[in-house]
Structures are given as C-alpha cells and as structure tokens.
C-alpha cells in the first residue's frame, strides 16, 4: 500500500472475513494514481458524510450514443486522479462464459487505458470498467473492438440483453437463453448503441421460473422459461427420496403454494391444473421431478426499481410462447411494444409506468394482443364482481 495514503475510515471496511472493495482498490493504489485518489475522495466522503461525484455529463465514443457513463469529481483540484472517472460498459457474453485469456485481455486493455478497476458482474449484466479520462475513451474503444469486444447499453436505449446460464449448465432450462440473448443483441444493435427510446428498456432471460436473472423484478421485459404440460415424475426416484428419509410431506407437499401435491406412501400425485410453476417441489427433489416436456417461456412486462414512480414487478403479457430459432415471434412482439411505447410514452417513462398510465386494456389494443386471464395481476380482488354467479353457472355445465 502507498505510504502517503491515510484512510482510517475506509480501513474499517477491510476487517472481517468478507471480500472488501477497499482491499481491491488498494491493491491497485501502488501503481495507479487514479486508484489512490479514488480512495482519498471516498475517505473524504465518509468524513463529510456526502458524495463528491458530479452528476452525469455527456461523454461517448464516435458513432455510439450509449455505453459510456460520464463521471467527474466535484473536487478535481484536490483529487486530480479522479477529475474524470468515466465508466464503460462492455457487452457481456451470454451466460457470462469467459476464458481466462479473454478476461486477461480485458484487464490488460483496462490497466493501460483506465483505472484497472472492474465490476464484474453486477445486475446490469455488462462487464463494467470503472474510471477513465475523456481522452482515453476512443483509444480504449479501439483497443476493445480490435479484439472483438463491444460496448453495452446506457441511457434511454435497449440495455445489454442479459440471460441466465441456461442449457449451458442447467437441466431446468425451458428454452435456450444463451441463444436468445445472443440473437437479440445482434438483432437490435441500433437500439442498443443509439439511445432513442423514452427511457431504458431492459430484457432479461431466465430459463425457468427459478429466475436466476431476477427478470420478474429487474427487467422491463422478462422472458422466463416455463412448461405447459405436466411436471415429469420419476416414481422410482420419488420412492428413493422417501426411503432416504427426506421429509417429503413437510418439505414438499406442505410447502406447495397451491396445495396441489399429495403424498400417498411412496408415491406423489400432482394436480397439474392447479400448479403455478413455482419450482419448489422440483428444487427439493431434482432427481425425481423435472419441468414438463412442452417448453417455452412466459413474457412479463414492466418491472423496475423506484426512480420516477415506485418499484414495480413484471406482470404477464404473454402466458406462453414457444422459443425456437430464429425467434421471429419474439422480435415481432418486441417491435410492436416499442412502436406503441415510442408513439405514446412520455420522456423518462418506463414501460411499466406507461402501461399503468394508459391502462392494460389500451396497451393490449395498441400492440394488438388479446386480453387473457393470465394477465390479471391480482385475481379475485374486485369487490364488484360476484364470483358466485360464475361458480353457479359452472355447476350447471356452462362457462
């Protein structure tokens, strides 16, 4: 560590058995003035209990509107090393598969042109390179693109599509998330690099309802693998779980949110018509149970963190879609959604807020989709609808 660096408050964050970003930054402080001033400025922030980054500022590389996030110190005289500290987002690989050589390549470029600090991988998805100067942006971009890397999205554009590891490692994958993420990234290069939307648009792809990319909570458009038919059951394996002492009754049957599983000795029965695809039973007994054979994805819209309006979860817009290359059906849906949102949305209005404002009915009409029962966010909560009538009708053999 550099001798002239006094950071008693930050040093507290090095204690304990946990990974520490302070340790990480200090490891570069010996050779990078940027890393040193970053620590100094942060220490001052902790002392004064306020941040010293200026907001935003438009910086970028030629031909692109996104991918670089401008960051300047509010105290450039005191901390010249971080007077410019721009972030670059690099389009990640599908499922975050890298060779060690590929990562070394990124690190070498970044140590030469920037602070050498990275954030890999946060929920943004991209490889996030933290801290460089304006005059280094073009040379960094050139060095990266020469090796086949590209910038990701930022600002009011399509953010870098992000997916779970999918069929690369996981038998639950109900569609090829890796392939779809790759496909969408290439299909929408213009939307990714040149911001022209009302606001950001994030697409996240999870292969099954375990939703490892948290698409339901963090993406404007979540594409979440699901199956249509029955959960596949291997009776022998169920019996083995029971014999091995697994408390199937307590851990599986009683935890089923819709109570659609019954255990009868060594056998389980699943009422698939009441299954809500929560994945719990499959997760507890992976050797015995697996998603059905008729696989595809449910598509949700509208999740976001609270900025302009409060936080939203995604809600279902397409209950089931088969997903196979060349994914034309997804493209068609995405383009209809963008067109309507672009035409009628306001500046800085996310798709979820837009749907809340214009109503789901108007939105569906605008994109040319039919209303379906699966789109209802909270069933049976309208006091003006008397369900008894429907039940009575059903009893009489009508619907």
């Amino acid at each position, binding site marked *: 560590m550099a001798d002239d660096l006094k950071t008693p408050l930050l040093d507290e964050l090095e204690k304990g058995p946990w990974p520490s970003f302070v340790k990480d930054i200090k490891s570069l402080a010996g050779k990078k003035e940027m890393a040193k001033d970053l620590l100094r400025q942060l220490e001052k922030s902790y002392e004064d209990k306020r941040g010293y980054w200026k907001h935003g500022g*438009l910086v970028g590389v*030629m031909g692109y*509107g996104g991918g670089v996030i401008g960051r300047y110190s509010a105290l450039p005289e005191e901390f010249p090393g971080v007077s410019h500290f721009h972030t670059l987002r690099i389009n990640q690989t599908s499922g975050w598969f890298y060779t060690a050589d590929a990562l070394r390549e990124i690190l070498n470029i970044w140590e030469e042109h920037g602070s050498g600090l990275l954030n890999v991988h946060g929920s943004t998805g991209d490889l996030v390179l933290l801290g460089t100067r304006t005059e280094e942006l073009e040379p960094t971009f050139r060095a990266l693109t020469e090796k086949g890397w590209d910038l990701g999205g930022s600002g*009011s554009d399509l953010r870098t599509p992000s997916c779970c590891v999918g069929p690369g490692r996981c038998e639950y994958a109900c569609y090829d998330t890796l392939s779809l993420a790759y496909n969408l990234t290439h299909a929408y290069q213009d939307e990714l690099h*040149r911001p022209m939307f009302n606001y950001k648009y994030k697409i996240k792809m999870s292969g099954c309802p375990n939703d490892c990319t948290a698409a339901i909570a963090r993406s404007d458009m979540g594409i979440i693998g699901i199956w249509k038919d029955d959960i596949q059951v291997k009776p022998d394996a169920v019996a083995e779980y029971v014999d091995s002492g697994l408390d199937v009754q307590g851990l599986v049957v009683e935890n089923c949110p819709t109570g659609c599983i019954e255990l009868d000795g060594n056998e389980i029965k699943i009422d698939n018509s009441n299954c809500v695809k929560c994945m719990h039973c499959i997760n507890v007994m992976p050797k015995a149970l697996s998603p059905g054979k008729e696989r595809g994805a449910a598509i949700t819209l509208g999740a976001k963190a609270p900025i302009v309006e409060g936080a939203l979860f995604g809600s279902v817009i397409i209950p089931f879609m088969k997903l196979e290359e060349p994914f034309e059906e997804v493209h068609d849906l995405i383009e209809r959604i963008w067109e309507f949102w672009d035409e009628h949305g306001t*500046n800085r209005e996310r798709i979820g807020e837009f749907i809340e404002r214009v109503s789901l009915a108007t939105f569906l009409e605008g994109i040319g989709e039919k209303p379906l029962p699966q789109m209802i966010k909270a069933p049976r909560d309208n006091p003006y609808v008397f369900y008894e009538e429907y039940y009575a009708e059903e009893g009489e053999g009508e619907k």
Partner: protein
Amino acid sequence: MSFEFSGKTYETDDDGYLINLDDWNQDVAAYIAEQEGVEMTDAHWEVVNFLRTYYKEYSIAPAIKILIKEMKKMFGPEKGNSAYLYNLYPAGPALQACKIAGLPKPTGCV
C-alpha cells in the same frame, strides 16, 4: 470562452456551444462543423435547420426520439432513423448537431 471567426468574436460556453442564439449564421456553423471534423452537406443542413426551427418554437432542443420522428415525417424513413443521424454526426445528433446549430449544450444523461 470565445473564438474569433471572420473578424468577429463569438462567446461560447466551456464546451464550445454558442451563448447567443442570434450570433449564428451559416458561415459560423460551417466553421464550427469544421472544428468538429464534420463536412457539411445538404443532409447535414437539413438536420441543423430543423433543430433551429424547433428551438425557436419550443425554446428547447428536441429529444432524439422527436428528432427521428420529425425527420421521418419530413424526409422519409431512410432519413428518420438513428443510424442515419449518427452517420452524419458521429459524436451524436444531440451533442454535435446542436453545437453546429448554435443551440445550448443538451443536458441530462441521454
């Protein structure tokens, strides 16, 4: 900050955007474009002229989305798209075209 051009001094902000909207004329626009490494063609002027007309009416530069839409209306879809605009103004239609059009620097994170 300021710069000299054909015997006149032009006041600018720190990033070289003209302070006075009325200082602007085609010659000084071409000069700013040259400094930016942009060679002005009819296609470039279409964008700049649109930006100035819009600014005079609304006192704000249009959002990219509006610029694209209006370009599409006036000149057709082959000119009303972001790739076309970035081709004309590689540093971005917001930043570069506004500078050449003599408008203030667009703010916010675009």
